């Protein structure tokens, strides 16, 4: 048991626990806040994986923007803020069963993978992963096109969402 293993297990417990709360808690705002906790755990994992940039981005995008958007949406769509009535559908046992089946299948596949217990090699201290990420993202022989396409995707999402959410009340 090394320090990083302890950290991993702690954050894994945080992630799984919070994720379970996300899908079971009755109050939607609580679900959104549990999501924040789960995503924060994921950010810790990124830090553990030495993807510092992603760890910070995870907090910025998910907690700073997506969670806020969720909470806003919850506020906007509830006249009656008390979350009355059952929050799960009647077929939830089936869903749970399926979830477990899929999990079993995935775990089976993972354990079947060759060399799955490998550990990572040390990244040399002088390697700047953030800089390398930047170069990979914009240099034409790597991912420049996905980079531009991402902006088109965001544009489309922006226009579409603004159009839908505005409800054309001007006309």
């Amino acid at each position, binding site marked *: 048991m090394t320090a990083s293993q302890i950290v991993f297990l702690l954050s894994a417990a945080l992630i799984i626990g919070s*994720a379970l709360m996300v*899908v079971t808690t009755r109050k939607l705002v609580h679900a959104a806040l549990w999501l924040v906790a789960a995503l924060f755990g994921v950010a810790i994992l990124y830090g553990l994986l030495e*993807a510092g940039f992603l760890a910070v981005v995870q907090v910025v995008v998910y907690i700073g923007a997506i969670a806020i958007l969720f909470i806003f949406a919850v506020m906007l769509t509830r006249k009656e803020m008390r979350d009355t009535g059952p*929050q799960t559908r009647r077929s939830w046992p089936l869903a749970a069963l399926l979830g477990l089946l899929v999990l079993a299948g*995935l775990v089976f596949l993972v354990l079947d993978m060759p060399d799955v217990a490998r550990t990572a090699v040390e990244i040399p201290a002088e390697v700047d992963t953030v800089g390398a990420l930047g170069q990979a993202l914009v240099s034409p022989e790597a991912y420049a096109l996905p980079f531009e396409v991402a902006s088109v995707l965001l544009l489309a999402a922006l226009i579409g969402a603004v159009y839908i959410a505005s409800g054309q009340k001007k006309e």
Partner: protein
Amino acid sequence: MNIPLSWYLILAASLFCIGLYGVLSRRNAIAILLGVELMLNAVNINLVAFWRYLDPAQMGGQVFAIIVFAVAAAEVAVGLALIISVYRSRKSVVADDIDLMKW
């Protein structure tokens, strides 16, 4: 870095399945989207873990993770906008009530 790769993969699988359960079982459309977020994060954990364990010099894994961020943002933006729009016209966010697309 003495954590086996399988730990990450199994954690991601569990997160994915919890998200899946949420998507399938929740009544509220917003809660369904919360489940989708969990699933997307599970995918991202896998991407980053593979990046770290297989070839840290190749930035593909991280780039893909960033693209997933963009996709998640787009999905949330449009998804929630749709839910709000439906809520306006039908006064409900229960996914089962949104069933005009039948037959």
